C-alpha cells in the first residue's frame, strides 16, 4: 500500500514537472504568429489589445482621454493597460521578457531606444510595413515624425514602431541661485572652464546650508551625453567594442571625480539621490538632464529654472533617446495592435501626454508644445533634434549599463582612478558584447 501511495506521489511529481517544464519553449510563443497582415478584419467582433504603458508616463486620466479618442475611430478595439513598475530601462525590459517567457505576452509595449535592438534582434517584434500599406490611414502623416528620432525604430529596413517621445540631456539651472551668485544663464557655446567657474561660484555654505554647484549624472544616459561632448563614447560606431579606454573617455570620468574630490563643487553621489529634488531645494545649482524634470517642476510649482546646452568640451554634441510602441509578434490581434501603436504616435496622443515630460517627436507638435516650456531657453530642446545622436544601446544593453554604472560608482566614490576603472569596464563590456 505504501509503495502504491509513493508511486502515486511520484507520478504526480512527474506530471507536475512535465507541466512546468515547458518554460524553454513558452518564450518562443512570442514569435509564433505570422507577420503577415490579417485579411478578415471586418468579420471580427470586439478585439482586445493589451498595452504595457506605465502610470508614471501617462496617468489613468490621460489614458482615458486617449482611448476615448481611439475608440471614436476604432470602436471595436478594447485596450487593456498594464503598468509595470521598474527601477530603470533594463529592469523594465527584463520584466517584459519575463511576461513573454511566462506565456503572458502583452500585445503593444512602450519601448525606448535602449531596448529596441534587444527585442528586434530576438525576433519578438512584428514588422509593421505591410500593415502601413494595408491601412495607410492608420498612421497620421509619417513624414511629420522627425526622421532622426524615428530612425532607431527602423531596423534592417523594417519599421517596428512610430516614435512617440524623445529626450536629450541639457543643463538645468536653479535661476534663483544664479541670481544670488550674480551669474547669467551661460551662452550656448560655453566651455569646460566656464562650467568650472560657474560650479565654483555656485558652491556655497551659508549658515550651515550647503549648496553645490553641480550634481554628477551618475547614470548611463546622462554620463553618455558628457562623453559625446568630449568626442568619446561607451561603444564604437558599430557597437561591437567599447571605447571607454579612449583618453577622451577617461578624461571625462576623471573630470567627474575631480569635481567631487579636487574642486569640491559636487556632492559625493548617493546611489539613491534625487537630483531633480536637489535642484528644486537648492542643494545643487546645476544638473544635467532631459526634459523630464519639468514634470516635477510643474507638480512642485518650481519656476526658478532655465536650461542650456551642456558645456563644450572637445566638441559639442547632443545625445538623444526616443521611445515608441512596438507590437509583439505574438499579438493575438495584430491588426488592432498595429492601429493602437500608430494612434499612440499621433498628434492627439503627443499633445495629450507630452506637455511637460518628454519632448514630442512630431515636428508640428514640437513647434506647438515646446514654446510652452516654462524656461526662457526652451529652444535648446527644439534645436537639438537635428544634430542629436542616439544613445548607444545594443541588444546587450542591460549588461553594459550594469558594468558602466558599477565602474562609474567606483570612480565617484574615489575607490578607483578613472583610467583603471575605464580599462576594466572596457574589458567587461567587450566580453558582454561577444555574447550573443
Amino acid at each position, binding site marked *: 500500500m505504501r509503495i502504491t501511495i509513493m508511486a502515486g506521489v511520484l507520478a504526480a*511529481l512527474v506530471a507536475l514537472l512535465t507541466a512546468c517544464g515547458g518554460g524553454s519553449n513558452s518564450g518562443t510563443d512570442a514569435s509564433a504568429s505570422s507577420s503577415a497582415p490579417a485579411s478578415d478584419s471586418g468579420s471580427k467582433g470586439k478585439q482586445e489589445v493589451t498595452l504595457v504603458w506605465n502610470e508614471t508616463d501617462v496617468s489613468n486620466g490621460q489614458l482615458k482621454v486617449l482611448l476615448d479618442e481611439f475608440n471614436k475611430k476604432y470602436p471595436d478595439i478594447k485596450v487593456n493597460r498594464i503598468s509595470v513598475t521598474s527601477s530603470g530601462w533594463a529592469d523594465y525590459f*527584463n520584466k517584459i521578457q519575463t511576461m513573454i517567457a511566462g506565456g503572458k505576452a502583452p500585445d503593444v509595449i512602450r519601448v525606448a531606444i535602449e531596448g529596441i535592438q534587444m527585442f528586434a534582434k530576438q525576433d519578438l517584434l512584428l514588422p509593421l510595413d505591410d500593415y502601413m500599406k494595408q491601412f495607410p490611414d492608420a498612421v497620421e502623416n509619417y513624414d511629420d515624425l522627425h526622421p532622426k528620432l524615428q530612425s532607431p525604430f527602423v531596423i534592417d529596413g523594417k519599421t517596428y514602431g512610430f516614435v512617440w517621445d524623445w529626450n536629450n540631456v541639457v543643463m538645468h539651472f536653479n535661476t534663483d541661485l544664479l541670481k544670488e551668485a550674480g551669474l547669467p544663464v551661460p551662452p550656448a557655446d560655453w566651455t569646460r572652464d566656464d562650467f568650472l567657474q560657474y560650479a565654483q561660484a555656485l558652491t556655497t555654505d551659508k549658515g550651515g546650508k550647503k549648496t553645490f554647484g553641480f550634481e554628477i549624472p551618475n547614470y548611463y544616459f546622462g554620463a553618455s551625453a558628457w562623453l559625446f561632448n568630449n568626442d568619446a563614447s561607451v561603444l564604437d560606431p558599430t557597437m561591437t567594442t567599447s571605447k571607454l579606454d579612449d583618453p577622451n573617455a577617461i578624461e571625462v570620468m576623471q573630470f567627474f571625480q575631480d569635481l567631487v574630490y579636487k574642486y569640491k563643487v559636487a556632492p*559625493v553621489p548617493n546611489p*539613491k539621490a534625487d537630483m531633480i529634488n536637489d535642484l528644486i531645494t537648492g542643494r545643487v545649482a546645476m544638473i544635467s538632464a532631459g526634459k523630464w524634470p519639468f514634470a516635477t517642476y510643474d507638480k512642485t510649482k518650481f519656476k526658478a529654472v532655465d536650461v542650456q546646452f551642456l558645456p563644450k568640451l572637445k566638441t559639442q554634441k547632443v545625445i538623444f533617446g526616443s521611445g515608441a510602441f512596438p507590437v509583439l509578434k505574438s499579438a493575438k490581434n495584430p491588426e488592432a495592435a498595429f492601429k493602437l501603436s500608430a494612434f499612440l504616435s499621433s498628434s492627439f496622443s503627443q499633445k495629450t501626454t507630452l506637455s511637460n515630460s518628454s519632448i514630442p517627436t512630431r515636428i508640428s507638435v514640437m513647434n506647438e508644445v515646446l514654446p510652452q516650456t516654462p524656461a526662457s531657453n526652451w529652444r535648446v530642446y527644439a534645436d537639438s533634434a537635428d544634430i542629436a545622436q542616439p544613445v548607444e544601446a545594443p541588444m546587450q544593453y542591460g549588461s553594459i549599463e550594469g558594468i558602466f554604472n558599477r565602474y562609474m560608482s567606483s570612480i565617484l566614490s574615489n575607490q578607483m582612478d578613472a583610467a583603471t576603472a575605464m580599462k576594466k569596464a572596457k574589458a567587461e563590456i567587450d566580453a558582454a558584447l561577444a555574447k550573443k
Partner: protein
Amino acid sequence: MKMSRTMKDGFAGYLFLLPALILFLLFIAEPLIVSVFLSFTEYNVITPYRWIGLDNVRQFFHDARLGLMYGNTFKYVLILVPLHMVLGLLLALGVTRKISKRWKYFYRTAFYFPVLVTSAAVAVAWSFLFDSDFGVLNYLLGQLGFDRVPWLQSPRWVYAAVALYSFWKFVGNAFLYYVIGLQNIPETLYEAAEIDGAGPLQSFFRLTLPLLSPTIFFVLVTTLIGATQIFDEPYLITGGGPGDASRSVNMYIYEVAFQSHEMGYASLVSLSLFLIILLVTVLQFRLSRTWVSYHQE
C-alpha cells in the same frame, strides 16, 4: 478487502502531508531540479535553451567577481548573525523583565513594527539618512564634533550602513522568537532559583540560556540562512556599491539572470549557494546535539 489499522493510519498520514508536499514539490523541488538542468544549458528566457555541457562550470571556476561576492556575503554573515542574535536577545530580555504590561506592549510593537513596513519604501528614507553631504546622520555627527562618515562611498563603512538598516528593519524577527521562547520558561523556575540564592547572572546562564537553547538554535539557523541569502539590504541601500564592495552572491545571481539574461550560469551559482547553505545547516544540526536541550524537567 479491508484495510488494516496501520494501513489506515499510514494513508491518513500521507493525506495530511499532501498539501505541504504539493507546495514543496511546486516551489522547492521543481525549481531545484530545473536549476540543476539549466546549469548545463545556455538559456536567456526567450529563445530555447541550448545544452552546453560543463561550460558554465568552467566559467564558475574562472569568475573573478564571484569570489568577491562570496567574500562580501561572508562579511555580512559575520556582522549580521551576531548582531541580530545578541541584540535581539537583549531586547527580548528587556521587555520580558519586570516592567508594566503597557510598556511591554509598547516595546513589542515598536521593535516588531519595522518588520511590517515595506522594505523598498523605508530603504529610500534610510539612504537619505546615510547621504554624505545632506544626510541627517552626518549632520548629527557633525554637531557632536565628528567628521563626516562616507556611509555609502567607503567599502568599509558601507557594511556599517547595511548593518544599521538591517538591524532596524529585521531585528524584530529574532526579538519575537526570543520573546515567545522566554515566555515559555515557567516563572516558578526563577522563583525556585531565587529561593536557592541564585543571582540574576546565575539565573540567566544556568536557567534562561539552557531553556532557551531550542529557540536560540532556531534563530541561529534562520538568521544564518537569511544573512547568506542577503539581497534586500544591499540592493535597496547601496545598489551593491561602491563598485562591487557590498554586492552579495544573491544580488550577483539576480544580475546575471536578469541583466545579462544568463539563466544557465545564474542557476549554477544558485546551486553553489544552496549547497553551501545546506552544508552549514547540516553542520549546525549536528553541533546542536552538544548544546541544545529540549527538556524542561
